[in-house]
């Protein structure tokens, strides 16, 4: 079913909208939620919460693209779940990804280091624009989608070790990029 048809079902308040949304994007959303929380049960709960969020938001929202919109909601809900249940101690995938980033972003959040949220987002987008498409995908699959190395390797068509080496280089490039722009790390 096309995204526009799914949104139309939401607009008509038809429960078929949720079934169609789940059929089209449920697998990707569950994988993202499980990557972050490290638990299939938590992931299911997060996706259900996200569907409720989508139900409440459309209408009036008319998201385009719909996939990005629901993935973003699932990520936010899953991160809150991770924080609530202290999943870092249980080894959730996102906790591991954060540990990697701590190697280059280890400073405290103080008034001096704080950037406006929008400014930081723009800087990150600027950094992403400097990367080749393949490296951009590797970076985002790891730190946005919290994919394990093996999954990224299969998607990109390189070895798992190659993903590891390239992520190490990308973190260093990120540090250099932010340092050059005088962002306190």
């Amino acid at each position, binding site marked *: 079913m096309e995204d526009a048809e799914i949104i139309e079902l939401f607009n008509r308040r038809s429960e078929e909208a949720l079934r169609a949304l789940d059929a089209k994007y449920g697998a990707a959303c569950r994988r993202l939620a499980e990557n972050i929380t490290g638990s299939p049960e938590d992931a299911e709960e997060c996706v259900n919460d996200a569907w409720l969020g989508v139900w409440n938001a459309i209408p009036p929202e008319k998201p385009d693209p719909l996939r990005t919109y629901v993935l973003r909601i699932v990520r936010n809900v899953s991160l809150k779940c991770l924080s609530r249940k202290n999943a870092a101690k249980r080894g959730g995938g996102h906790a591991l990804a954060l540990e990697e980033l701590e190697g280059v972003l280890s400073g405290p959040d103080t008034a001096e280091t704080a950037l406006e*949220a929008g400014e*930081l987002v723009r800087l*990150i987008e600027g950094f992403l624009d400097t990367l080749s498409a393949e490296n951009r995908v590797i970076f985002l699959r790891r*730190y946005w989608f919290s994919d394990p190395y093996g999954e990224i390797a299969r998607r*990109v068509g390189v070895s798992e070790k190659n993903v*590891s*080496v390239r992520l190490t280089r990308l973190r260093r490039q990120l540090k250099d990029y932010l340092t050059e722009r005088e962002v*306190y790390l």
Partner: protein
Amino acid sequence: MTALAFSEALGGIGARYLEEAADYRAKRTRSLWKRGLAAACLCLVIAGALFLLRGGRRNTLVFNELASFSGTAAQAVGGVTSEPVSAEEAAALLGFDLISAMPEPMRAFDFTCAKLVSGEDGAVTGVVAEGYADPDAFESPGVFLTASFEEMILVFEDEGDAPDLREAAFSAIGGRSALAFRVPSQTYVNARGEEKARPARYYLLLDGGRLTFWIESRGSLTQEEVEALAAGLAGRG
């Protein structure tokens, strides 16, 4: 900035980046790594040929001028991870004190060290030392140095960034062959919209014999300081 703050901000990036990452599937069978390896073979073949043609070892470093360089040196086979170690542990792993082998002013830099560990068998394959004259000062002179027991190759971010190695001048210092290049000073706009100049950067891949060294200058480190560092390392590999 904390990793968590970064992760939260990352959540706000534009939909086009997420659509690209969601749809992306490999389009090729050969990896960058293999292309890097092919480039390395080319590099070594050319280095050998030039060496023979010149009939001996030169002791002058020639820094090729590159408009930009996006990449690094990496071990030729397998993946590695790095783990922090003290300077003493790094010296024990290498069999000599890397920092003492540096020219006098550089020894006073504030260094952090790490060991490189093979992803295949957990063996230590080298040591990294990164140091700055003043870690809190912007563009402070500094150096990023890798000493590897394994052969290292240059890995470029993508083919478009790769300089033509056939045009590269291979030179030598201290009787050891080297590939050196320089990216001149560039201007950029910082987060506050101010135009700034980034000092020239020097890169050097040096065959030290038992060890291969990869040197990247940081901040306002000069060519003379990079050469002095390479001269010191050439005799210690």
